[in-house]
């Protein structure tokens, strides 16, 4: 089999590269290629994003927002009313997990993320996140698209629309979720009214064979060499066709797309093949599907993919209405080491400086215990309900002020209190780090100039280094 370099050399003498030359000269090049690299509004601190989506809603009081006051009221009603959440909750429910200070900053993190916490001095913990409602569907859409119900592009789509992508041989925006879709399905990475190419490419990372990961990435009947010959014929016929038709960018960009596709077959196979990593790296990330998909994510980022979203699993895995101690421990164990490895790995490769890492769910969970509701939970009285009033997320890398805490929740962790950061504010800040004024990254549709933050959003300066 030809290696990648030889392939590139071969295709460089094919028709496609000739077309590429004239396409780059053409004024319409960027129009023809919606994924061509574009400059943001101002110098960006982050060039790419990885969003670790703990779907279902991880509990902040069990991870990044310690609330010792809950001990005082353990099993008793809180002195304040429980704010309205999806279901009824009862007495204070202190975290069953131990918290400990980490790093120079001495920020407390629970044992669930003991490994990730090794990087605390690179992380900015936002403890005052808040959203609009305590339900998965609207909160997922809000977190991803900045709007709870209506059709709007997701943040990955906005970014690839705004920045294009660095590697034309791979999709610019990839959403990975093992075993199927999360709740609300592919709407989470929708392009909305933007061109379909800005939609996240979904990858079921439970699959390990590359041809099952990306649609049409392999020809089942032809080897790459054979296909190259076929492609050469195609491009020859295309060039004969173009000869009679003067210079027409729409013909040329299509010729070019075949060369890109051909290379994508190899690059994608390569990017998703974690067996090419050294034993040391594989051990660092650890076993299991989380480790594999987070490692794949790193390989994609390294190759210039703009936005990678890594979902924990199909449905809503972090939704621990019952048995939170068992479930949260299991879920965190699945990903803690890999997240630690990701941060270490990015750092070692010098990529953390311009890679924005985002961790979080669509909301947090109540500091009070969920009461039995027939049909809704198992009635074990050892879980927590959804909580949009206050929750934690963390950012790292890409221009983020490490070793800091932004905002807080009230004494018991129910609601965001000071320096509140709404999801819109997170989006505004994220765009700022990527070089965009969130009010100016717009797209006109149906008579309106739409943006990710709609009519909201403030840049949270405390997050930015």
């Amino acid at each position, binding site marked *: 089999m030809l290696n990648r370099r030889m392939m590139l050399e071969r295709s460089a003498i094919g028709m496609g590269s000739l077309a590429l030359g004239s396409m780059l000269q053409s*004024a319409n090049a960027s129009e*023809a*290629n*919606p*994924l061509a690299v574009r400059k943001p509004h101002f110098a960006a601190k982050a060039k790419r994003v990885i969003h670790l989506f703990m779907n279902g809603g991880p509990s902040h009081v069990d991870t990044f927002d310690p609330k010792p006051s809950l001990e005082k009221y353990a099993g008793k009603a809180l002195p304040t009313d429980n704010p309205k959440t999806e279901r009824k909750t009862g007495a204070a429910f202190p975290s069953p997990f131990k918290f400990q200070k980490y790093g120079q900053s001495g920020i407390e993190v629970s044992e669930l993320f003991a490994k990730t916490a090794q990087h605390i001095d690179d992380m900015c913990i936002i403890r005052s996140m808040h959203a609009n409602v305590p339900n998965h*569907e*609207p909160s997922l859409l809000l977190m991803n698209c900045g709007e709870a*119900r*209506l*059709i709007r592009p997701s943040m990955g789509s906005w970014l690839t629309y705004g920045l294009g992508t660095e590697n*034309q*041989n791979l*999709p610019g925006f990839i959403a990975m979720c093992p075993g199927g*879709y999360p709740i609300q*399905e*592919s*709407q989470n990475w929708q*392009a*909305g009214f933007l*061109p*379909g*190419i800005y*939609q996240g*490419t979904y990858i079921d990372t439970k699959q390990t064979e590359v041809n099952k990961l990306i*649609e*049409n*990435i392999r020809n*089942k*009947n*032809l080897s790459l060499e*054979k*296909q190259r*010959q*076929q*492609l050469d*014929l*195609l491009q020859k*016929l*295309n060039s*004969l*066709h173009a000869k009679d*038709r*003067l210079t*027409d960018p*729409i*013909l040329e960009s*299509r*010729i*070019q*797309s*075949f060369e*890109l*596709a*051909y290379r*994508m*077959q190899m690059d994608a196979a390569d990017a998703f093949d974690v067996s090419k990593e050294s034993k040391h790296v594989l051990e660092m990330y650890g076993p299991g599907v989380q480790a594999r998909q987070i490692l794949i994510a790193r390989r994609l980022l390294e190759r210039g993919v703009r936005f990678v979203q890594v979902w924990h699993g199909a449905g809503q895995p972090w939704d621990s209405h019952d048995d939170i101690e068992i479930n949260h421990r299991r879920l965190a164990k699945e990903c803690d080491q890999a997240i630690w490895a990701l941060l270490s790995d990015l750092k070692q490769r010098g990529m953390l400086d311009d890679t924005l890492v985002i961790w979080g769910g669509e909301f947090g969970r109540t500091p009070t215990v969920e009461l039995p509701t027939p049909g809704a939970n198992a009635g074990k009285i050892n879980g927590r309900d959804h909580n949009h009033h206050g929750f934690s997320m963390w950012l790292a890398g890409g221009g983020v002020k490490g070793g800091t805490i932004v905002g807080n929740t009230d004494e018991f962790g129910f609601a965001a209190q000071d320096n509140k950061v709404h999801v819109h504010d997170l989006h505004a800040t994220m765009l700022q780090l990527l070089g965009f004024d969130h009010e100016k990254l717009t797209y006109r549709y*149906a*008579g*309106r100039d739409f943006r990710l933050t709609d*009519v909201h959003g403030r840049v949270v300066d405390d997050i930015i280094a």
Partner: protein
Amino acid sequence: MNSFLACQLTLLLLNADAASIDFFEAKIRPVFIEHCEKCHGSSKQQGGFRLDSKDHFFKGSDSGPIFNPTKPLESKLLKLLHYQSELKMPPKGKLPDQVINDISEWIIKGAPWPADLKKNPNAIAIANQDHWAFKPIKKPAPPKIAQPSLANNEIDFFIQAKLEQNKVSLSPQADKRTLIRRVYFVLVGLPPTPQEVESFLNDSDPQAYPKLVNRLLDSPHFGERWARHWLDLARYADNRGYIGVGVDRTYPYAYTFRDWVIQSFNNDLPYDKFLTYQIAADNPKSGASKSDLAALGFFTVGRRFINNQNDIIDDRIDVLCRTTMGLTVTCARCHDHKYDPIPTKDYYSLYGVFASSQEPEDLPDLGLEGSGPEAQEFQLELAKLIKEKEKFETDNAEIKVKEPRKFSESIKPYDNRIKQLKSKHPGSPPKGMVLFDRPSPVEPVVFIRGNQGNRGPQVPRQFLEVVSGANRTPFKQGSGRLEAAQAIVAPQNTFTSRVWVNRVWAHVFGNPLVKTPSDFGVRSDPPSHPELLDFLASNLMEDHWSTKNLIRQMLLSSTFKQTSSPRSELQNNDPENSLLIRMNRRRLDFETMHDSMLAMAGTLEPAVGGRSVEMFTPPFSSKRALYAFIDRQNLPGVLRTFDFALPDTHSPQRFITSVPQQALYLLNSPFVQEQASKFTLRFTNTDDHFEKVQAMYRVALQRSPTKEEVSSALEFVEASGPDGFKQLGQVLLASNAFQFID
């Protein structure tokens, strides 16, 4: 404070002295500008509040006044600034004490503020009068041109006149081979067969071309191609989108709307009736027949937004107003339209129309009960299921009386089976996804800032002022949908005919005259050819709204018959070819590509209409792409990749992108490989490679290959072994020659 003192204070306010005004201008207004106006100014009004003018300041926010004239120190503004309430202003950080003290001092004085400079209240109205789309349609005479011999009909006079102004002329007429391919794709979305090409080439009748156009306009496939254009606007899909996990989302009868649209185009249903039925076919006065009830799917095939009624209505207002009139009315859901004369009140007038309409539990039959074996089979199966249900009822008669709840639970599976059969069986009678009027219509109120909890004034159900004028009368008949339809198709409506002409033009010529086909508001660019647009719009109405005649007129023009090769003359001044110095070269869209491949395979099913089918997993259907089951929640990747219309909201125009994923589909997808294989198998009657290549070219590209093409092909086949022809077949299907229309 008693009323006497309040009076005193008011007087004080009126006599705001010059010093106080100076204090305001020096100490207060700059603070407002710096710290507040970003969120409470002309561009944004958070909480419905702005303080960039006196009037707005004293009006207060959505939740009430901000200044308390009777107890100034208790004014809400001071509480916000002191961070004493839950809401804290400015949110980024408390203002310095000195600044808050200044504001308190100013508040105590009664908030002296100089009068606003009055803007002419009619300024917007006056500006609007100048907007082209708001002006009445007048039929202009075609302009004089220097070379009338170039013109085939009036369209050419308008086009050539503009070209002459730029010292250029229409391109020469395309050859017949190019033309027949172009006409086929525009009218029926399929390539011509080699026989059809030959007979057109050999037809020396000067009327050969008009005859071809007429024949294709009469083809049942015409309606299929043009229905798909309409379904883009109607955000057609076969399911309702996300409404929860494990809930059946399917619209089993969405296809009846699709089929109605096909038949309407095929029958050349006048466009005014075509719209009226889609808006109000349930109203007997609309003139619609029972089978036209399917037209109401126009509203009901939309997304359901987890059953949020306000969003469903918003979607219906949007699909109605943008599709028919190019008006972006939903901008007025939360505030008056920022650019167009569409106040929030008008939005809620239409809201009332849809809130007064409902979908019945049981959808009505369309009176189209089939005969044939499928219908018989359905009747047999239905009878069987009913029998089973009856048996269960008889067997459990005792439980029915004693434990009615348990009984109704246990009989559910029987009902479900009947329901499933009715919605899935191809022989079951089709039903319409209708809207009916509620028994008593809803009197709508404005939801302030779109918030249902914040109810504003009541408004009548009536049509938009920008269309029906200030003297419009409220709707009287039920929900008012029929009256809305009548307002839309009224000859004095300045939008409807123009919008339709512009859409048809875009489909025929590849580019619209007005660049934003679904936004004719004040921010839209004027048409490239305003007189032509009005000429065709007037013609359309005079010609009883015949869409086929409109299309025919366009196809018979010299403008349409031009060659498509780029020309150097206007390339810099008119890179988008809006002056039409040449025909636009176009790439096949997803449907024409898909259908052409099936045509090449020789398996394309000619039958028109029917239930939607799974199209994207093997074994592949041979039906046209139009019949694909459209899952709007998880749109198949191939549709996204090929710029299919987003089925979630009205889609004015398709994007045209060229991305490697499209090429991957053509190179590797099982569908393309299967069609290539079948295509090649059609040429097994000869072993002569040269003849075989010739024949493949004639079928795929409707022409013979050049010498160079033949030698390249033969060389490839020879080198590629037994699979060579199949691969060659795939190359032809993937080639630019196949995928572009000159």
